[in-house]
């Protein structure tokens, strides 16, 4: 069995904790370009590691990781759980439907409780924007944001970047970042934390980002974040190198935003015909879960050479392993990551 190696040794990134001087991972917005690249570089070793038959290391042995999910999740929770277990940590899942928490204990009391149980890292998903940052202010260990409201979902953006990079490499493009690429993100931008994190991450890595949604699902001011807004999906697809589809987040909608799924597909569904408007070999992404026949047709989702939707899931585990590894280095006393070395 090959144990993952410390890829940062001898790399061009700053030494020790200066490569990633953050206690928590709350959002892409607080990361510099080189810090994003560092996490991607650290994740590469786990991609290879995860492809072995025996994929267990003892790197985080003895550490307790709590996955506190205040909102429904299947894939993200599973991905974080697998990531922690493969690194040898004791992983505990706390699934608290938001309603039951709202009835009694406040979020901060819950956070303090988790802290008192001496977690070494806490992974949190919560339905309110800013909630994960709020918890981070009340605990002593690293906090990873697994999605907060409509704010950010940083590991999703990182895994998307990693999956995209792998696909580009497979095609012989060895560039470190995405300079020159045009990425079209289409769907319920308003309610999507994935879109926000991806806009920030893709732009930090040099891509230009187009956002496409009907007016009611397009947040105000995206152009001031550097993204180009579109309402016409076909115009947004024109010449795009990457097309990322998002689902409609019906559970977040306060009121009716579109008449029907059928009508939505008519205007914004990614069909093979529409995909033909993008670059000839344009890459198709989707963070899942997909609604086949609504925002994406099966014929597109299953294109083996172009859709990297399952690769996104695979990269998710590697990215989360890298994040857990990097953020617990201080607690584990990894050389160069000790006390007083945070910026």
């Amino acid at each position, binding site marked *: 069995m090959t144990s993952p190696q410390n890829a940062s040794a001898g790399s061009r990134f700053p030494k020790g904790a200066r490569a990633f001087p953050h206690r928590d991972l709350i959002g892409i917005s607080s990361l510099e370009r080189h810090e994003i690249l560092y996490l991607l570089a650290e994740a590469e070793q786990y991609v290879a590691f995860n492809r072995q038959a025996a994929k267990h290391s003892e790197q985080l042995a003895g550490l307790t990781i709590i996955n506190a999910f205040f909102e429904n999740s299947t894939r993200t929770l599973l991905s974080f759980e697998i990531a922690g277990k493969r690194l040898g940590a004791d992983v505990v899942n706390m699934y608290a439907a938001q309603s039951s928490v709202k009835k009694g204990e406040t979020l901060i009391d819950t956070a303090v409780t988790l802290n008192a149980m001496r977690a070494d890292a806490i992974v949190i998903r919560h339905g309110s924007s800013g*909630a994960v940052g*709020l918890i981070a202010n009340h605990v002593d260990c690293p906090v990873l944001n697994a999605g907060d409201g409509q704010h*950010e979902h940083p590991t999703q953006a990182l895994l998307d970047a990693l999956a995209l990079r792998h696909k580009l490499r497979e095609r012989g493009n060895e560039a470190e970042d995405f300079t020159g690429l045009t990425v079209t993100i289409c769907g319920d931008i308003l309610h999507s*934390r994935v879109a926000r994190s991806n806009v920030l991450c893709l732009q930090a890595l040099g891509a230009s980002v187009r956002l496409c949604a009907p007016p009611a699902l397009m947040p105000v*001011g995206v152009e001031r974040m550097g993204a180009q807004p579109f309402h016409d999906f076909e115009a947004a697809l024109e010449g795009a190198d990457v097309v990322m589809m998002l689902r409609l987040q019906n559970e977040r909608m306060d009121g009716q935003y579109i008449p029907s799924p059928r009508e939505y597909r008519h205007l914004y569904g990614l069909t093979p015909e529409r995909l033909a408007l993008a670059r000839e070999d344009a890459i198709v992404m989707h963070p899942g879960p997909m609604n086949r026949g609504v925002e994406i047709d099966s014929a597109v989702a299953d294109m083996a050479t172009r859709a990297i939707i399952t690769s996104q899931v695979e990269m998710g585990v590697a990215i989360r392993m890298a994040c857990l590894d990097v953020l617990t280095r201080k607690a584990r006393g990894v050389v160069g990551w000790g006390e007083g070395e945070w910026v």
Partner: protein
Amino acid sequence: MKQVRPLSITGGTLVTPDGLVDGTLRCDAGLIVPGDVQDGDEVVDAGGKLVAPGLVDLGVFAIDKPAFHFGGITRAALMPDLSPPLDHPARVRFMAQSGKPDMWVHPLAAATQGLEGQQLAEIALMREAGARAIATGRKWIGDSGVMLRLLQYAAMLDMVVVTHAEDAGIAGKAAATAGEMATRLGLPSAPKEAETLALARDIALAEMSGARIHARQVTTREGLDLVRQAKARGVAITAGVTPAHFMLSDLAMGDYRTFTRLSPPLREEDDRQAVVEAIGDGTIDVIASGHDPRGPEDKNLPFADAAPGMAGAETLLAMTLTLVRDGVIDMVRAFDLLARNSARLLGVGAGALEEGLEADVALLDPEAPWIVDSREMAAAAGNTPFDRQPAQGRVTMLWKGGVAIDL
């Protein structure tokens, strides 16, 4: 407590409606009286400081005496948004007595039962019980038919209706104004036109019914334009604002600080500037605190889940004085905004240093520096959006009806 001995405040500069006057203010039997110091008067030397009317705060959500007195507030109009709401004469009568003798509370009658915007409340009976005006609360009355009948009724009773200008359908569950900041923070947001629409309708209905309306908070450029135009046409509308909307823009919500979660929410910088202009040109008539102390159980939450509102009584005067220092308004107008205009709207004999009015007086050092500290507030809770901000201007002595209040 009644004033037992006449009081003369000498050696100060009086802030009167006609200008700043160096001289003596004499109070007897609870009222401001003409003349100079007389034998037997209790004499207080103002030491060259300002002698100003006690503030009349039009629109607070809690009776919080220590905070009001710190801020030089001697009268406050209490919004009906209590639990249960002020929609019953007995509750109005009780609240009207609740601050006496050293703080007068003027309850605002709930416009509709339970503030639900459907059935008119017993407004005339509440007036009898001491309600000084009517308020729709922190909600907009969505049904225009109900609003029209309310305004017709209020016009008959000659009572001002204090409105909340936020179209409920557009505002929804918004915690922020739609814009770059809300998008970056991922907060549920509503376009600022929620205010424009609500104001446009209310102005039209006020014009129809002849009622007097006071839009408690007008916070957008377009909303202020509507008020300006309506005033020019002779509509009986007045407008107010709180310091949050002329001191802060939505940038202050960064880091999800829930002390900046307000209703209506903070606006973009252009709107903040429009509010400052509107204070300068007279479109805005009243600056109020919107005082709403909220403890950690309401504020130590994710932004959108937190209750809106700020503890504003202590900072009301100091923040308004920044407008004087910036040359937007002069000192006389500052006290028109803080006291005189709201007293007139409420129909109470106070709010100015004029003969025959109630001797609610503040001695003010307009330059005294201090730092706002949410941990050390006089208010019941420290939810100020101005935390750690340097401020200038402090009340050093305060009299209600000629009787000194311990500060």
